[in-house]
Each structure stands twice: as C-alpha cells, then as structure tokens.
C-alpha cells in the first residue's frame, strides 16, 4: 500500500512554503499535493518520493504530520477510466473520503489516489478487476515511460 503524508498547516501565507522547503532540503520529490481546506487551517496531503524520510523531517521541524495509507491505482489516461473504477467501489458501498489524480504520461498513464473507508477490501476488489494497485516503491518510482 502507498503512504500519503498529511501535514497540518495554518491557512496563512508562507506555511505551505515552509512544508515544501523542508522537503526540498531533504531532496524529497513531490509527486502530487492536495489541500483539505477547513477555514483557518488545512491539511496538506502529499505523495512524495520518500514518505518515511519526509515524515521524520517534518516532525523534527515541529510540524504535526502523519502517514496515511492510500489506494494508488495506475490507470489508462482515457475518458471513462475513473468512472469504471468508482463503479467497482460503489457496488460494494465503499465510501471515498478524498481523492485526487495526477497524470504520469499524458494520454497514456494516470494515477488515482484515494482515501477510502475499507482500504484492504477496496484494494482486493480493484485488483480482482485487473486494476493495478501500486505499492509505494512502485508509485514513487513511476516514470513517464
């Protein structure tokens, strides 16, 4: 399973920079980032090249950060791809809590990341449908082949 790094950030200028600055200092690459905005604060969700190292570096700098397992699904970058995936989860009433995607190779390959409420079951279902659930060592080394 892939791990996503969740970081608490004050919703004011410069705070997100502080997070990315720590990652840069540790030569950590950011694959994708999304922010759950809750008004005065937000939770930045990051997919990075080395989540464990990134977590330790941020905690050392006093940040509130946590690692969360997420489903990372490799998909073809084509219309309808995401819909099929969500259908599988909907059939089993698996709730998607948060989701975001990024394209690895335009027109060919995309990755869809999801926080779901029954992670292992969802992973099993999707794998059974032939979808590729990425382990993090794979996810973080994806290249635009």
């Amino acid at each position, binding site marked *: 399973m892939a791990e996503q790094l*969740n970081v*608490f*950030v*004050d919703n004011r200028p410069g*705070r997100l920079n502080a997070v990315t600055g720590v990652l840069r200092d540790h030569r950590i690459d950011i694959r994708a980032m999304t922010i*759950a905005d*809750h008004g*005065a*604060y*937000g*939770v930045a969700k990051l997919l990075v090249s080395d989540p464990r190292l990134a977590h330790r570096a941020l*905690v050392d700098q*006093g*940040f*509130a*950060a*946590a*690692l*969360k397992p997420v489903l990372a699904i490799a998909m073809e970058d084509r219309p309808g791809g995401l819909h099929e995936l969500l259908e599988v989860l909907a059939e089993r009433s698996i709730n998607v809590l948060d989701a975001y995607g990024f394209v690895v190779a335009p027109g060919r390959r995309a990755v869809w990341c999801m926080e779901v409420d029954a992670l292992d079951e969802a992973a099993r279902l999707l794998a059974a449908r032939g979808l590729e659930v990425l382990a993090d060592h794979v996810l973080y080394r994806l290249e635009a082949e």
Partner: protein
Amino acid sequence: MSVPVWNPAVEFMERETLERLQFINLRQTVAWALKTPFYQRRLAEIGLTHPEDLGSLRDLRKLPYTTKDDLREAFPDGLLAVEREEAVRLHTSSGTTGMPTVIYHTRRDIDHWTELVARCIVAAGATAHDVFQNMTNYGMFTGGLGLHYGAERVGMLVIPASSGNTSRQIHLMRNFQTTVVHATPSYLLHLHSALAGEGVTVDQLRLRKAFIGAEPHSEETRRKIEILFGIQAYNSYGLSEMNGPGVAFECVYQTGLHLWEDAYILEIVDPETLQPLPEGRTGEIVMTTLQRQATPLLRYRTRDLSHLVGGNCPCGRTHRRLARLNGRGDDMLIVNGVNVFPSQIEDALMKMPEVGTNYLIQLEKRGSLDRLVVKTEIDPKPFTGDPRDLDDLRERIGEALRSAILVKPVVELHEPGSLPVSEGKAKRVVDLRPAF
C-alpha cells in the same frame, strides 16, 4: 439646585473629622484582622500584635499589602475574622478553576454595604419614586444583590430581572415603566439595538437614568448611551473583594466617582515600586476596608488603575473622587456580560491531550456583541492526519469551554509553535474590542 443626598452627616463630613473616623475604624479593622490566621502571621512579621500599635492614620503605610493571591492562599477561612455562625452570606469567585476566593459578611457588614449602595443611588439622583430594573447577574456576582439591597433600602420599586434575555428585559421596562436600570454599558447598547425588533421605541419607555459599571468604557460610550435613550448614565465602581458595587459612584455632576472614605481607605500607588502617587497620577488602586468585620482586608491591591480627581466637586461631598477607570489589571474578562477567567479556559484546554501548550484568547466586537476567539495549538503527537478528527476536536474544545465558562467561543486550531509563547496569563489575552 439642591443636591440629593442619602446621609448628609457622613457625605459632607469635614475632612479632618473623616480622617479621625478612618483612624478609629482602621484600629478596629486591625483588631478584627488579628483574629484571622492569615493576618496574625502577616502582622506578626512586622511586629504588630495590637491595634494600639498603630499611632496614627499615617501608620497605615507600615501595614503589608494584601493581594489576590493571598486571598486564594487563605481560601476558604484563613481571612475569616468571626465565627462562621456570625456570617450571614458569602460571595465566592468561580470555583471551577480550583483557585477561588471568598468574602464573608456578617449581618452588620451587609447592612453597611447596603448603606453605601443607597448613598450611591441617591447621589446619582434616583429616589424612592423610581422603578429600578436590575439587569445584572444575581447570585455570586455581587452586582445583582448589592444594587438590589441598596435600591430596596432607598425605597425604589425593584425588578430583579438579572442579566440576559433581552426581549424580556424590554417588555419588563415597558410594562412596569422602568425609570432606572443597572447594566453593563455594552449590554445597554445591545438592548437599544434590540428595541426595534421588539416593536418598542424609546418614547414608549420611561427610562431616565442608568447605572453602568463592571467593564471599562470611555466617556464617548457613556454619552452615546445617554443620547440613544435620552437619559443620564452614571459610572459605578466596585469589586467583590470590597463587597461589590457601592465602593465609588458618580454624583449628578458626573465629575468622577466619589469613593466612600468612611468605609474604605484609598491609596493610589505605583504598581511597580508600590510608592504612593500624588493626586492626578495614574496608579493602582489600593483599598483598606474599614467596616467589614467578617473579612477585613488591609491595603488590598485591586489591580485596577485610576487617578484621583483634584479640587472639590460642586455637590459639596468631601469624599474624594476617582477618575473613570483607566483599565483593569485584573484578569477577569467580561464577555457579553458573563464573567470569564482565562484560567478557566486554560484548565479546559489543558485537559485535552490533542491540544498543545500555547493558546491565545482574543476578544472581538461584532456589532454590539462580544466574540470570544480561542486559538490553540495542536499537539503533533496525537495528530492522525485526518481532517475530520480535527473538526471533531474543534467541536469538543468548543463544547468543553462552553460548559466551563458558559460562553461558546470560536475555536481556532493552529500549528504547533505558531502562537506566541508567554509566561504571564495576561499576555495570552488580546482584547481587540474598541475601548469604548
């Protein structure tokens, strides 16, 4: 113009006579104080074991100061100078924080207090013909019962409305043709803005005077209240350690607050050096009770700041006047008329493991209402990364604070280490309300 007065013999007493009276009562107070474990020890330290050791009023300066911390330390009975059976009432500060204070009163003490409040009410021009609606909290808060007793003694028709419930206040005012009210200035502004919603106009009211106190306010606010309601508003000063209301009050000339010097010895001192300050210089108000047997207090540091007004008041009273209070060093906050102690907020926050050590209390004004914002840092260790847990935490903090302080605050969560670190409690409070 004849000046309304309740007790002319005392209120117009020659200064020389007044000071002789103070000295006699100071010796009596020291005699009472020597019955308490707290003052036995404290006065023994300066070699004072008999009231006769005081040779003159000037010897007051030899007495030690008493602080709020002393009151906390002496809680509950270290400052009680009578048998419990002789006390008829106590007022204690909010005990939820674990650091309460208490003032006991004998029947005679209540009687003296009531007399002082009656003087205030009459000095401000109210009479037995007035209908008096007391809009301050009854119960432990001394503003309710203090004014109530004084108003009854004057012979006013008293409506013990207590605080809050603005709609009911307005209807009481209209139905009973209230002529005098007692409230905080901000509450009166709020009440005025609520009149239209109740379909009531100022003209339908018979209001003619308001007694305002319990929160610092500017001359502009007083004038605003006077213009909005077409009334006179008089400043009141009191604190529970000195009974409550009735310590100092404005007369009809509104030139400062006469402090009843037969009941209290007033000193204004530099809060840093504790040296007495000359007339006109602002410093900390220090008071010694002269008429309270159950809980005598010597040179009590009020943490309130003010200065003495020079010259004589046109009313002819010889009791000196305090200027409008320049601020409250006290840590109590008043939020929409409710007393809130930062320590209560701190206690509630520190019980929650997800909350970090730093916090900030911010007071803002939204329209005529106060808004209490509590900013806390989250503790990085229990952080789950789930935003829903944070929303839940905010909700739980809000609920814990509401049940601790009876005010629902706006809770803000912040990054660890992002709020200013401070040692003193006072620095954790930012009051952005305009000093109206």
